[in-house]
């Protein structure tokens, strides 16, 4: 393992207390990540040169189920369809185009170096590993950086209208954690344009007959036959009918589990249930504690609130973040007696520029979020609750003019004004961190295969590329990398010996049993006939998660969370009320099924956070920080991926470790100051 260069002083600063190894046992199973041999830069080329393929005539005899139609799911389903596989594509929305990738605003990274500012595949790889606080797998991240350029080419060929310069070539902007401009964008709607590109490609395959769509269908269980993933049980959300679907392989592309916190930037339907179904069938769940809290969201304002709206990280290119320098000014602002625009320059604390001169307002998300929390906790927060900071465009407007700022961020400013009823051209935006993305997810190896043969996980649903913190504009990159350029190769290595396996009948006993189990779970929920709505219990879970498993975690807090989540679980399973019938459209039943899994995920997140006695990326344990409040890793003990294995409903899961080895990169403490 590589040596770290954390200073001895910093090491001493950490507290010595160690939490008990929560429910973990010595790693008995060896986790094989199947990283190909050879130098880092040649691994993917070598893999592709030597992997097994499926010939065109055999492809059409093989069925692949893809669950989810976001960037990863839609691009994978389209690409597999183009190759000739027979694809079944499922989504819970009324159309594949609605998947929550659509809401990604700022952009997509690629190592094109079109700006001639020193970018390269290695630099993108390095920034991603460093941004992830040295908790991601080197080989996967290098491959991600390697295929990033092809993604941009592909999207342009599909007609994605990326922003351009007057000369007709593509424009770039900067994102957090990078010192180059490598982010491609389409106004503040990059996710929308990329998803519509993938959706177009998917639509083309539907017309050709290689892909069949199943919108408004929700996966409720994974079917395993002889140890391999062979199908799913899904509920038709319109008719309520439970249906069986068989295939030679199953791909999970169902996104993240941020809505465990109830309030998040995720869509209302985003959920972690498919991942949990796979987990309960034996797939490892990796690094569940690694959740990203995005620094720039519109602050919470009331109990009725259903979601939090993100203000793109791209705004930090030109916006400056500050709070008042004096507490009395902050108090006056909170009381409505003082306006931010009245405060003189010298009375403002641009705390990111002050603390991190090298990266300034463009520090990574975890760093920016914690810094905002630190200022608010210290009493300098603004807004009616004191839980907000300013994102100010006054100096950008002065420097560039309002028109340029409008051209760059117009739609974001409009969105802010519609929600908050304040004009951000005239007064600074109020922002605060919110749950946004989950780096943890289903464990996958280099081939994106889970620990269950024939079951693959791609996009945010897997854990592989972002370590403990994801850099801005990298989620779109990873989703499309997995879907267009990685899975379509690696899945063939698995399918090559499946060509003689005939299509499965859904009358097999494994399907019958899985459907029976799903029906039993639904009947159990419907029969509780309690007094509380699903949302009211979900909000309760959300409060626990935000308070104890949010931005600042402690051993005591996490132990409290585990207790409280247990109480929520009991309350849910004895007192939830689901109106209506199960065998028809029933939105409350859909929400209840998802909440049942969110409760389990919340438990898993707290357990993993308690086990990880260190701070890294988005996981900040208050006991482990440097004297100036930065995350303090414990590389000698925790340089591993925690892989949790389900043991049964009433038992704690067992954890295995995938040790991380850094061969190309020197592991060091992250530094965004110099």
């Amino acid at each position, binding site marked *: 393992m590589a040596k770290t260069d954390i200073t001895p002083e910093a090491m001493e600063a950490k507290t010595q207390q160690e939490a008990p190894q929560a429910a973990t046992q010595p790693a008995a199973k060896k986790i094989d990540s199947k990283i190909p041999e050879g130098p880092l830069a040649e691994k993917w080329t070598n893999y592709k040169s030597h992997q097994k393929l499926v010939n065109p005539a055999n492809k059409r005899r093989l069925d692949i189920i893809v669950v989810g139609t976001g960037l990863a799911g839609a691009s994978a389903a389209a690409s597999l369809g183009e190759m000739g596989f027979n694809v079944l594509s499922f989504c819970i929305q009324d159309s594949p185009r609605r998947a929550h990738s659509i809401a990604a605003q700022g952009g997509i990274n690629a190592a094109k170096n079109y700006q001639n500012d020193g970018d390269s595949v290695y630099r993108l790889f390095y920034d991603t590993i460093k941004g992830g606080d040295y908790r991601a797998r080197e080989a996967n991240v290098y491959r991600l950086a390697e295929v990033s350029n092809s993604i941009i080419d592909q999207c342009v060929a599909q007609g994605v209208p990326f922003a351009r310069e007057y000369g007709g070539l593509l424009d770039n902007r900067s994102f957090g954690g990078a010192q180059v401009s490598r982010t491609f964008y389409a106004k503040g709607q990059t996710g929308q344009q990329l998803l519509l590109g993938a959706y177009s490609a998917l639509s083309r395959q539907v017309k050709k007959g290689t892909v069949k769509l199943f919108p408004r269908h929700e996966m409720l269980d994974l079917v395993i036959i002889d140890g391999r993933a062979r199908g799913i049980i899904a509920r038709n959300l319109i008719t309520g009918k439970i249906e069986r679907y068989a295939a030679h392989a199953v791909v999970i592309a169902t996104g993240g589990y941020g809505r465990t916190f109830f309030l998040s930037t995720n869509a209302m339907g985003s959920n972690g249930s498919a991942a949990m179904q796979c987990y309960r069938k034996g797939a490892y769940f990796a690094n569940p504690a690694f959740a990203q809290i995005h620094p720039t969201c519109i602050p919470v304002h009331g109990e009725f609130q259903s979601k939090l709206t993100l203000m793109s990280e791209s705004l930090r290119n030109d916006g400056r973040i500050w709070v008042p320098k004096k507490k009395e000014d902050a108090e006056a602002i909170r009381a409505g007696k003082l306006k931010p625009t009245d405060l003189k320059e010298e009375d403002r604390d641009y705390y990111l520029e002050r603390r991190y001169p090298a990266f300034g307002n463009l520090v990574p998300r975890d760093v920016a979020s914690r810094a905002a929390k630190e200022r608010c906790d210290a009493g300098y927060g603004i807004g009616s609750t004191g839980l907000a900071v300013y994102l100010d465009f006054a100096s950008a407007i002065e420097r560039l003019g309002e028109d340029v700022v409008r051209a760059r961020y117009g739609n974001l400013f409009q969105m802010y004004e519609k929600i908050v*009823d304040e004009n951000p051209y005239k007064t600074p935006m109020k922002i605060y961190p919110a749950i946004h993305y989950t780096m943890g997810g289903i464990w996958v190896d280099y081939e994106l295969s889970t620990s269950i043969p024939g079951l693959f996980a791609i996009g945010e649903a897997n854990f592989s590329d972002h370590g403990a913190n994801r850099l801005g504009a990298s989620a779109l990159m990873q989703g499309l990398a997995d879907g267009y350029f990685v899975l379509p190769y690696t899945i063939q290595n698995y399918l090559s010996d499946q060509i003689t396996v005939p299509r499965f009948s859904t009358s097999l006993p494994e399907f019958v049993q899985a459907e029976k189990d799903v029906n039993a779970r639904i009947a159990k929920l419907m029969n509780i006939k309690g007094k509380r709505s699903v949302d009211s219990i979900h909000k309760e879970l959300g409060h626990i998660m935000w308070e104890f498993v949010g931005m600042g975690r402690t051993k005591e807090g996490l132990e409290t969370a585990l207790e409280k989540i247990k109480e929520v679980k009991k309350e849910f399973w004895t007192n939830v009320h689901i109106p209506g019938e199960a065998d028809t459209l029933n939105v409350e039943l859909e929400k209840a099924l998802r909440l049942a899994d969110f409760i389990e995920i919340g438990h898993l997140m707290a357990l993993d956070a308690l086990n990880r006695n260190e701070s890294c990326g988005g996981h900040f344990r208050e006991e482990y920080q440097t004297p100036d409040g930065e995350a303090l890793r414990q590389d000698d003990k925790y340089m591993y991926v925690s892989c949790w294995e389900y043991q049964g409903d009433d038992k704690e899961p067992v954890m295995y470790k995938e040790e991380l080895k850094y061969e190309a990169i020197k592991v060091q403490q992250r530094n965004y100051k110099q």
Partner: protein
Amino acid sequence: MEKNINITLRIWRQKGPKEKGAFKEYSLQNISTESSFLEMLDVLNEQLINNGEDPVVFDHDCREGICGMCSLYINGHPHGPDEDVTTCQLHMRKFNDGDVITVEPWRSAGFPVIRDLMVDRSAFDKIMQAGGYISVNTGGVPDANAIPIPKANADEAMDAATCIGCGACVAACKNGSAMLFVSAKVSQLALLPQGRIEAARRAKAMLSKMDELGFGNCTNTGACEAECPKNISITNIARLNREFIKAKLKD
């Protein structure tokens, strides 16, 4: 500034596609003007569930105006009285204490009601499948900067591509036409050199699918543009017509 208002809702309730629907009245107290319209409906549903009634069914997902899943015809306007927003971004500050608010589903032959305020918009997917794409496979494409595109064209394509496929244009149109939706996609791709190659075929295929699925024709009333939450311009319809005529002349 934040305040609370009392309102009366007249909501369309309909069990299924073939069943008869009717308006039902509900009164709601102390709704914060800072809440969004859908958060107000969440409050109503919480109340209905606690009273043992069936909650109102409506489509929604991202709640930030981009997924296109939310709909609702509010006081005679798709996405309600505010301008340039979807229903999920409409806020209660646009309403007054004592208001009676009428909420209906999209009403159009192309969008049958599923239940209450939820409609079936799968026809839009079918129109897209008819030709709303550039026929390229994954891989083997030129470098992204190989073909420079004038900024003005790229920007105009982006404006057209902003369409979220919500169907407000169809709901607003007295003919139930999907021309604004179709023309936005046809324009986006026709404005780019990559999409130019199939422009004629695309225009014909998408229009003929639109007709086949029961959407009406365009009579240039401009209602679609006026109600579009994303400001998609009807100049796109003019461009679609040009593409269509050019294609027909070549036949």
